[in-house]
């Protein structure tokens, strides 16, 4: 009887028909945070690679910032998953007893590869010379921290520095496919779930990737506009404009791919189309139509067009870029929300919808999610302090 009573209690959050195990949503807001954060990592790295591999000179001031941002977020990226699964302290065992047939377990190795072989190595070679120099100037804990971080290396000869530069470039070249893999894989995990028509799509990795690039560029842009003035520097408008134009194109590509996916689904009109349109029209209307598409994509696109067409003044431009950056973050977070939560809101019988009730306090709750989104910024602050991205002269330089 108890089971039946509990069931009817829950059934109130349901419209139409739904299987009993679909009423409660299991992948909570933590699973929304996770692809959002990995997306920021991949996107920030792609921005950094524009400087090294594609030689976009204007973006040089953001290179190190982008790398540190990627690292700060990457360190936290697995945490939402580990908290969701429980027993985070055991998660390293995944590497010791590899399970080849599990897509999720193999993601651990993709993550490990990206952290150890790509990001940490690149940052290490990039900063090695500076770390040696700084550790000479610093005192106390900071001195030793820098010494340990540089692995007590001492060679600052021209030859050694040239080797560093070359290595950084090679790692970036390896890094681009790795970044694609990192976030494409997140999309793959959703896209490969055959039973769920909202997820099951070969477009999924691609959609994830481009939204990642969008969010990554936007976050570095925001950080650049915040951190540089905080450090007493002047924002390099040429760099900002360039970043904004890359952002503009990335949003366009991202938007077109999503529209393509949408049209494809409509034309295919599989048996799930009715419930999916009901989903979009009711449960996801706010987060998909309003937040993701209107506020998160079309509005920033429009604003950026206005900026370009009317050649606005510097101060206005800055303000608008900042607003665009925020809107895009909001939009991409909604994108993740719509994928993760949206995919669980409808019944596999295609005849009913359920509701997601978010906790506030619990481990799967809103507060934990907010904390997870704040920690990377704390880490970033520490990193920026230890490994400043700009030299004094660079900050003072005006363009």
């Amino acid at each position: 009887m108890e089971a039946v009573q509990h069931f009817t209690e829950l059934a109130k959050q349901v419209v139409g028909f739904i299987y009993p195990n679909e009423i409660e949503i299991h992948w909570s807001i933590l699973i929304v945070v996770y692809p959002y954060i990995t997306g920021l990592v991949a996107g920030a790295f792609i921005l950094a690679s524009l400087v090294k591999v594609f030689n976009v000179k204007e973006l040089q001031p953001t290179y190190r910032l982008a790398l540190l941002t990627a690292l700060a977020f990457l360190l936290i990226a697995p945490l939402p998953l580990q908290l969701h699964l429980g027993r985070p302290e055991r998660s390293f065992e995944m590497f010791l007893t590899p399970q080849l047939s599990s897509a999720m377990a193999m993601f651990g190795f993709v993550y490990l590869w990206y952290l150890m072989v790509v990001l940490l190595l690149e940052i290490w070679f990039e900063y090695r010379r500076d770390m040696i120099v700084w550790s000479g100037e610093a005192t106390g804990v900071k001195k030793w921290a820098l010494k340990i971080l540089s692995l007590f290396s001492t060679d600052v000869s021209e030859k050694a520095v040239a080797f560093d530069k070359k290595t950084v470039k090679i790692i970036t070249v390896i890094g681009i496919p790795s970044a694609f893999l990192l976030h494409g894989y997140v999309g793959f995990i959703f896209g490969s779930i055959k039973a769920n028509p909202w997820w099951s799509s070969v477009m999924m990795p691609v959609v994830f990737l481009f939204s990642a690039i969008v969010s990554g560029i936007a976050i570095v842009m925001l950080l650049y506009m915040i951190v540089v003035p905080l450090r007493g520097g002047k924002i390099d408008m040429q760099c900002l404009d360039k970043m904004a134009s890359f952002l503009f194109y990335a949003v366009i590509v991202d938007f077109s791919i999503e529209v393509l996916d949408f049209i494809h689904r409509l034309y295919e009109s599989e048996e799930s189309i009715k419930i999916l349109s009901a989903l979009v029209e009711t449960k996801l209307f706010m987060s998909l139509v309003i937040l993701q598409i209107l506020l998160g994509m079309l509005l920033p696109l429009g604003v950026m067009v206005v900026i370009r067409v009317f050649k606005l003044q510097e101060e206005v431009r800055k303000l608008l870029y900042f607003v665009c950056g925020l809107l895009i973050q909001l939009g991409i977070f909604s994108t993740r929300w719509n994928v993760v939560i949206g995919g669980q809101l409808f019944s596999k019988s295609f005849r009913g919808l359920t509701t997601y009730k978010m906790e506030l306090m619990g481990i799967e709750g809103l507060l934990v999610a907010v904390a997870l989104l704040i920690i990377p910024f704390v880490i970033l602050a520490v990193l920026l302090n230890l490994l400043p991205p700009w030299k004094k002269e660079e900050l003072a330089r005006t363009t």
Partner: protein
Amino acid sequence: MKFLQKLPEQALRILVVFVILATGMLLVRQFVIPADMKDMTLIQTATMEREADKEAKYAGAAVCVQCHEKQQEIKRGGYHRDLSCESCHDAAQKHADSPTEVKPVSPRKRDYCVYCHSYNASRPTGFPQINPDTHNPRKPCITCHNPHNPKPTQPPRSCAACHAQIERTKAASYHAQLACTVCHTTPEKHKTEPRTVTPTKPDKREFCGKCHSEGKGAKGVPTVDMATHGEKYVCWQCHYPHMLGGI
């Protein structure tokens, strides 16, 4: 070794770090992780054993019959023959183990039967559904229906008793005025033994033509040219006869 000498100092340092990490991991895997954690089949068996060890709560329908032949006998011939005892009496393994100490619950109130018998669009066609607010309200269902054989005292009056969804869609379609029996000749026995005695269904285009072919139609009935309209297909391949809103 020559290769190592040629490497710059810093590359060597980083290489050493990586080698230490990798060997560390391999050593831990080799010596610290117990063998059965590395063996996939063992892990799977362990999982199965863990599941099997869980306390059983449901005894299963076959068990109840051993002691409750009378109820089983009543239920066997009735409408509830396909229900398992425990879907009404709740998990009863404990009762089966010690019948006199633990008594299963019996749902005597109205609200329980309604979980299955209130109207819901997704219930299969032919499933008996009532509106609990109007169907003999307030009295417990079991005053009139024996829960083990809930045969009503008289057969249901309307087709809607069991075809609630069709009735509701038809009521909102162009055919709202047509009785079900215009298109389905229904023997009275269908209402008591619905699966053994079934009504007829239209099987030819001409059936709809009785009212819809050009020239024949009564006033106000839209007509079509039977020879060309819809070609060789039966009409309900395009027009769902109970839901004529669409086309």
